[in-house]
Every structure is written in C-alpha cells, then in structure tokens.
C-alpha cells in the first residue's frame, strides 16, 4: 500500500532517526536531510577544539523507550554505561542515588524509606501516564475512534491502575510544584535539592514553579532496566539501524524552506537551491523553525502562527566542555564515584535562587550543575586528555546585555561553584569551551536553544504541544508532519515523539 511513498525527514536527531526507521520498516522510502555534518542531534558526540570526542549535548539519558528498542531491535544501553547520581555537598557528605534508592552519611532511615515510597508512587503515576506518552495525544472535540480509545485508557489507568486513593493523590499533585511535594515527603534538604534539580534542569522553572511535578515525571524513567546512562553511542546505534532499514541520510543539507502548494506539502528546498520532491515531509526541527522559518506564515493562519510564535522555548542551560590536567582528587569521590553523574543542587532554596536570576535575564550567582567526567577508556582520539562535560543552569538565552563579555564571567561562576564542592578543581582546568543557549540555537538549528524544543508546562503539553492545531503530529499543511521534541510528549532522549509521529503517519496513509 505504501511502498512507493517518498518521505523526507528534516533533521536526523534521535527522534528523526526513530521516526525514519519506523517508516522505512513500514515500507516507505525515507530520506533524512540533516543540516549538520552528522546525524544524532543532541545525542551526537561533540568533537572539541582539541579533537577530543565528548558526549553529545544530552550527555546522560535513560535511553530510548523500551517499546522502541523492541520494535527496532535495538540493544539497551550497556550496563557499564549506567550512571549513579551523586549530589555533592560542601562538607563532603555527598549523597548517592542508585537503583531507586538513596544513600549517604547523613541520610536518615525515614528519608531513605520515604525515597523508596516516593519512587514507587511516581513510578505508578508514570505507568498510568504511559498510555498517553506512547500514544498520539487525543483531540478533545471531533474525536476519532483512536482518540476515544486513548482517553478511555487514560481514564481506566487512572481509576483502576492507580486505584481510587492514588488517583485522587495524582489529581492533587499532578499540576503542582515539586517543592510542596518534596516538603511533604522528606526532611533532608539534600535529597529535596537533588530531586528538584531533576525536575527543573533543562527548563526555565524553579522548584516552586507549578508544573515541576509534571516535568519531573516526564524526565525520569522509572523502569527496572532503565537506569540513567551515558548516551555516548546512541546516535551511532540509531544511525546504523536506520541505514540498515534502508533510510537514506544526507548530511550538510540545510533546509531553506518547505514547499507548500495549495495547502499541500510537496517537498523541500535546500539552501543550496536543490529541490527534493516528496509525498510526505516530516520535520524533526522545532515548531518555530518548522512553521515560521521553513513553511512561512504566508501559508498558515494568523492566530496559529501567533501561537507558534508565543511558544516559550528560551533555553536556560549552557554546556561546558572541559579538558582537565588531571583527575580531581577528592577523598569523598574515590574510585568509581568520580565518574558518576555529579550534581550540585544542595537544597531547594539554592535551586530556587539559581532560578530567580533567569527570570530577569541574568545568569545564576550560584548555578546548579551536572558534571560527568569521562573514564579513561572512553577518551577520544587524543588519549592524553582528561575530559568532562557540564550542564550548567541557569544561563538564560535572553541574557541582559548579551552573552559576549559575559561568557567568561559565567564560566568563572561555574568553576568557583565546583571549587567549593571539589576543592582544587579550578587548578585542574586546562581548557574549556562554552555553549550558551544562543550557541546551541546556532549549532543545533533550534530556536531558543531549548533542550526540549519548548518548556514542558501543562499549557505546552499533551494536546497543546507544541500548539493546538498541530498537536497530533499533523500540521495545518497536508502531508507535513512533526516528529521532534516540540511534539508530544516532548524532550528527553525517549524517541517517543518520533515513535508516535510514525504511528500517526502510518495511520494517516
């Protein structure tokens, strides 16, 4: 039925690769056009100025959704890549999150028990929502059979999956902030700080911002085999899989525009003026880039365009690539601990204060940080370097006065902060590179340089993601689809937007 349909996927990020693979598997002839010199997007390894190969922008993830691994016959990320999370403390009493439990010198039995209960509870919420995240978000009016089925399943999962009591609890906490929930559950500020960190990293939200329970649920994968991993070779795996399924990949192919004739998408034109005609075009680019840049408002309704333009997607995380002279020596981070995911978010007030600045276009005085130091065996071609990657927040896209002369000042803030937690760190830095959200915008072709192609507030989620009128992977233009993190269920290295989009496209043809 679909054998000779020609499909173009704009952008070979992980979602583009997943979507392309599913479509190729379904018998479509798929061509990926990637603007950069390699596919993988935020998962693609970064080669720094010294030639070191570093983890991509998303240096840690839970890996793709299990269903996708199964469908595409992909291996789960090897266990040796798995990461524990160590939340650093100034006094050295760090706490470790591993295997759904928390440990540390000062952790009380009560908190440690609460943590297991908390994970258990959130895991159930996450399972109840699974049917929503792995499906096309239903429309609320003019529903088709699938929409009704999804809605009924969600209702069923909430009522019978969770049970009356937990359903009520979920309806209570679902829309609120992580700050209140954590205060209800824990005593230890460090546990609260670390969980809040996960709820806000990548967003322009603080722990007190309502919606952070949702962003936490969307961020964390609670599956048994889904532990946090370095996502080093994910892009290679996906690229090889796509190719093996017959997907053609063309890199260094920047899109100039998507060709729309009489409301129907006919193909794309590259900046090189080359034209690719196709039956379907699927955009892995963010909604703003897709609609405002590639399609053009001339082909769209005015209020729809305004909604797209109003999407909040100003990034707030900077990436720092580091070359170190030597590994840090810290008695509290001995052996393997040094190579885990180290975070700095000692308590919720700290995180909230860090966030406060971003509201006014300032970077944080005391940023929240996530650092991964590479193991020796993972080092790139230049084996003499010791490298590390840092995600530093909050570093707003719309910094007052621009990033220009603030770049060094900000990096100094970051290093000063680390110094407090890992004494001697400052002196170990040989060189660094900073990617601000503006650089990320530029290099990854994503407006605002936002990790998730748009904040994950409720108002920009589900059937409102990226905007209503284009929330079911379809767009106002016939034969043009979205498959990126702009679409439901949003950012993170889950592959779900790509998976769901493929489902919708196969259904539509």
């Amino acid at each position, binding site marked *: 039925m679909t054998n000779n349909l020609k499909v173009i996927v704009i952008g070979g990020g992980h979602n583009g690769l997943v979507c392309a693979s599913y479509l190729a598997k379904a018998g479509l002839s798929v061509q990926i056009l990637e603007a950069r010199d390699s596919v993988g997007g935020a998962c693609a390894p970064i080669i720094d100025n010294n030639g070191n190969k570093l983890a991509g922008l998303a240096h840690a993830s839970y890996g793709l959704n299990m269903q996708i691994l199964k469908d595409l016959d992909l291996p789960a990320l090897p266990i040796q890549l798995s990461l524990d999370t160590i939340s650093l403390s100034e006094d050295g009493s760090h706490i470790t999150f591993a295997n759904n439990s928390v440990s540390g010198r000062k952790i009380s039995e009560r908190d440690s028990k609460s943590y297991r209960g908390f994970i258990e509870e959130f895991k159930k919420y996450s399972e109840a929502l699974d049917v929503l995240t792995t499906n096309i978000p239903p429309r609320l*009016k003019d529903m088709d059979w699938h929409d009704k089925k999804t809605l009924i399943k969600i209702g069923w999962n909430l*009522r019978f999956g969770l049970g009356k009591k937990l*359903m009520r609890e979920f309806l209570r906490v679902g829309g609120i902030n992580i700050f209140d929930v954590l205060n209800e559950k824990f005593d230890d500020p460090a546990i609260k700080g670390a969980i809040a960190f996960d709820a806000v990293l990548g967003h322009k939200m603080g722990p007190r911002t309502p919606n952070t329970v949702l962003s936490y649920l969307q961020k964390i994968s609670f599956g048994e085999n889904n532990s946090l991993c370095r996502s080093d070779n994910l892009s290679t795996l996906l690229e090889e899989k796509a190719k093996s399924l017959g997907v053609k990949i063309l890199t260094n192919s920047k899109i100039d525009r998507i060709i729309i004739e009489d409301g129907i998408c006919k193909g794309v034109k590259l900046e090189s003026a080359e034209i690719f005609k196709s039956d379907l075009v699927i955009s892995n680019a963010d909604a703003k880039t897709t609609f405002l840049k590639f399609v053009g408002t001339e082909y769209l309704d005015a209020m729809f365009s305004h909604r797209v333009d109003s999407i909040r997607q100003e990034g707030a995380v900077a990436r720092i690539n580091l070359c170190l002279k030597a590994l840090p020596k810290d008695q509290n981070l001995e052996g393997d601990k040094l190579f885990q995911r180290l975070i700095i978010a000692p308590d919720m007030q700290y995180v909230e204060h860090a966030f406060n600045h971003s509201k006014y276009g300032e970077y944080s005085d005391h940023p929240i940080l996530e650092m991964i130091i590479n193991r020796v065996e993972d080092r790139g071609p230049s084996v003499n370097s010791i490298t590390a990657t840092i995600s530093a927040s909050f570093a707003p896209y719309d910094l007052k006065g621009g990033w220009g002369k603030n770049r060094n000042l900000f990096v100094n803030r970051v290093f000063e902060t680390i110094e407090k937690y890992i004494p001697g760190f400052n002196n170990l830095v040989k060189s660094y590179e900073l990617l601000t959200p503006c650089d990320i915008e530029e290099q990854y072709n994503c407006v605002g340089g936002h990790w998730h192609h748009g904040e994950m507030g409720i108002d920009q989620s589900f059937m409102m993601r990226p905007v209503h009128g284009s929330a079911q992977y379809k767009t106002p233009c016939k034969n043009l689809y979205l498959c990126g993190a702009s679409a439901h269920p949003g950012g993170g290295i889950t592959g779900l937007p790509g998976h769901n989009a493929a489902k919708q496209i196969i259904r539509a043809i």
Partner: protein
Amino acid sequence: MENFDAIVIGAGHNGLTNAAFLAKAGLKVLVLEKNEYIGGATASLELHKNWKYSNCSYVCSLFRPEIYQSLDLGRHGLEVVPLQGSVTFKQDGDYLGSYHQSDLWRREVARHSKKDADAAVRFDADLMKWCRLIRGFLLRTPPDPASFRPRDALEFAFLLKKFYSLSESELYEFIRFFTMSIANYLEQYFESDVILAHFSGGSIIGTGLGVYSPGTAYVLLHHAMGDVDGNVGSWGFARGGMGSVAAALSSSFLSFGGTIRKSSEVKKITVSNQTATGVELVSGEIINANAIISNLDAKRTFLKIIDESDLPEDIVKRAKNFKIRGSSGKVNIALDGMPIFSALPDKSPLTLGHMHFSDTLERLERAYDDWKDDRWSSDPYVDMVIPTQYDPTMAPPGKHMMSVFVQYCPVSPEGGWDDKKKKAFGDTVINQIGDYSPNFKDLILHAEIRTPHEIEKEVGLTEGNIFQGELTLDQLMFNRPFPGYAQYRGPLKRMYMCSSSNHPGGGVMGAPGANAAREILRDFKRKNTTPEDFGDD
C-alpha cells in the same frame, strides 16, 4: 438547655450564609463566634475614634447576587456601591488609568500602546468566555471524579456539557488559561509593561505565587468574575464597611429564628462513634446538635478543634499538607484629609477606585522573590482604596479611611514578628505610597498594621491566608479542601464544612456557605432553600 438542629462554628460571612439558609429551611441553628464581634474577615471596626475600618476584606464583588436576593440582604441593610475604575502609577511620573467609560479607557490604553488598546478587546472577550464557564460552577457541588455514584456522574456530565459548549480551540485555550502564569498569558495579548502589570495584580492577591508562576492566570478570574449589578469585573464597597455584609447576613439569619452567641470559642467538636455529636466550648460548656458545621479553615478544623484520635489518619496528614500560606498584609490608615497624587490631574476620578504602584512584571515578580525567602517585599504590590470618598459612614466629613492591601508579607520573617519588624513592614508600605503622594505622610492620624500573624490571631485565618487555602490546581474544585471531601461533608458523620477552604474558595462570595447548606439540607431531607445560578443565556 436548648437543643439545636445545627451548630455553625464561626460567624464569618460563609458561616452566616450557611446558617441563614439552614434557618430559612426551618432548622434551629446556633452560630458560635469566638470574637466579641461577628463577621470574621468581613468586619468594620472602630480602631481609631470616629473611624470605621474594613480592616480585613475591603471590597466586594464576588458575593453571589443569587444569595443577596434569596436572603433579602438589601432589606437587611446591605448596600454595595460600585467602585469607579482603578489606576496604576508609573515610576516615571505617568500613570495608567482604568475608567469605566469605555472610550476613556480605550484612549488611555492607547496612550501607552495603540496595539494594546485594540488587543484589550480580544482579551476582554476571551476572559469573559472563561468567566462565564467558571461562574456557572460557583453555586454547585463539585463531583468526585473517583466516584461512580449517579449523582457524581450526572454532575460530571453537566460540567462536560458546559465545557463542550466551547469550540475545540477554545477548549484548549481554556486549559491553557487554567495552567498558565498570568504573565505568560497576558504576553499573548499585550506589549506595554504598565498594562501587563496593571492586569497582573489581581492574579497574585492573596496567593503564594508570583506573576510568572503557572496557575496564576486562573487566580485572575477570582478577581475578575465578580460583578456589581451585572457589570462583570467591577468591584464595590459595602456601605459602612465590610462589616455591613456580616450585619445583613446576621439580620437575615436572625429573622429566620437563628441564634448567635459571641465570645464563645469552640474548644473541640465532640465525637462518638465517628459521629459528631456537638461542641465543647472553651468555657467547658457542651452543646449538642444533629449537625456540626465548621466555618474554620481546613487546617484549624482538623488539627485544632477535632481530636486527632477521632479522625481517619489520612485526614490528619492531608490537613497538615493543606497549603494555606499567608502572603498578604494589610495597612489601614486614618487620614486627616484626601491625599494628593502628583501624577494625577486635578479632580481625577481615578482615586475613586483601586490604586497600584507596581508598573512592571519584574517588580511584581521580585516582590514575590522576597517572600519566598520569608521577607516582606521591599517593593510590594499594594491594592489601595479610599472608600470614604463615597461612603460618608466610615470617617468624619473631609477625613478619610484608606485600606491598603499588601502583597507579599511572610507568615514569619526570620526570627518571627516583633513590633520593630511590624513597624518596618508598615513603613515600607507607607514610604511607597509617600513616593507618589507628597502630602500623604502628613495626613496620617493612625495606622493599623496587620501582618499574617495578626490576621491569624484575630480572625482565625490560618497563616493569615485570605482564601483559607491556596487557589492552586491541587486545591481547587474536587480537590478542595482534600480529594474525596469536596462535597462539604467531613470525614465524620453529621460533620460539615462551609468555609472558603471548600469549593469555590476564597473571596467574599458566600458560595461555600450556600453550597454546604444545600448538602446539609439534602441529608436532613429538608426543602432546599439555596438559590440556583441566575445563568446568563
């Protein structure tokens, strides 16, 4: 000793509303009040000789006209006089005036941004859509989403039908409105700082959230969906101060044969066999009744006047986790004359309405940042009114009473409140006003400074929260006050709740009191005396 069908604990406006409807249905009702005056937060107190202060709530618009009519409050002495507009002063000496006359208002907005003047048309229409929807739910009992009882299912069907009267894109916009921050919501319409700030203020009054916190757009509705004589969004003064609301309600209640006892603090609700049987007063007196109705907030009700051992465990936990953050203060001032506001032209009508001094979203948000760290805002958002410009009953001729609502003020600053801090807080507010009015400070005869601490101590609002519980998604509709207990029935048999801790929440609305009465009368198989929504189609 006398026997009562029902005892209402607390003579706030919801307690009195509730009691009046019960008495109207023929029940024998006793209202117990701990203070020597009734009204709770709707009180007019003479705190300075010859001056009457509306020292807590100060304006009135949400009070349901249905209740007003069915309790005949006009004949019982209530007069609500509409306010005329509002003004936001700018730091640069200019101002944005909000006039009721539509051409004036339009021209004024256009003075700041021509585009915003036109966008206001779209904003008004959209806001009215959401108002219409929500207003229809105010005088109804929320259904329990986890229940399968026909009544809940029918009510859900009713809500869904209302919801589905919207078009598809309006449905999504409504959900967005519910979950967005007021700042982000308004930024879809407006560009001018002062206009954004002007419209945002109503969204943070009384809440522990900032203008950039998701969920605040909805709070705007609590300040926009009220009406005076059908003019949606307009506000009114109760002539004689807010105490007139309580006075009219009590007069109506007494006319139905009710009894009010002041200075009668309840120590606890007596319970036997998981059934509320009566109350024990602080004096030791015990009064029994068939229904015990608490008009106290959920925290006080379940943590203070019921023994923990009498309650299911999860209720105690929920009550402890109930969010009822004090975030507001109040400064009430007796003035020797009318202050002059340098920015305003002579004889401007703008002093007749609400006055504000926060002209950017950033200032509003920074005010919130202070509060998050348990400090009062160094540059607070104030909502200031001078009702004596129209109300001759509250101050001597030529003199004025000024009511200044202050957002944000912490429940307890570092080290707790003391007189010095209280004065410093008051000075912050007075200095802010003084920056815009050169003669203001010289006119001050007396000032009453109220922090959340005073509000809690005197009125009994826990933490001084004016809504008796935050208006966040986790505490709205069927979640208010707790999931599973949103239908005004408590966890004990014959125990009910009628305070603003229940749907539809705070504001001088009377709706929780009326809704609770409807449920109680249902249980007692009495004729329903509570009114239905007037509707507007």
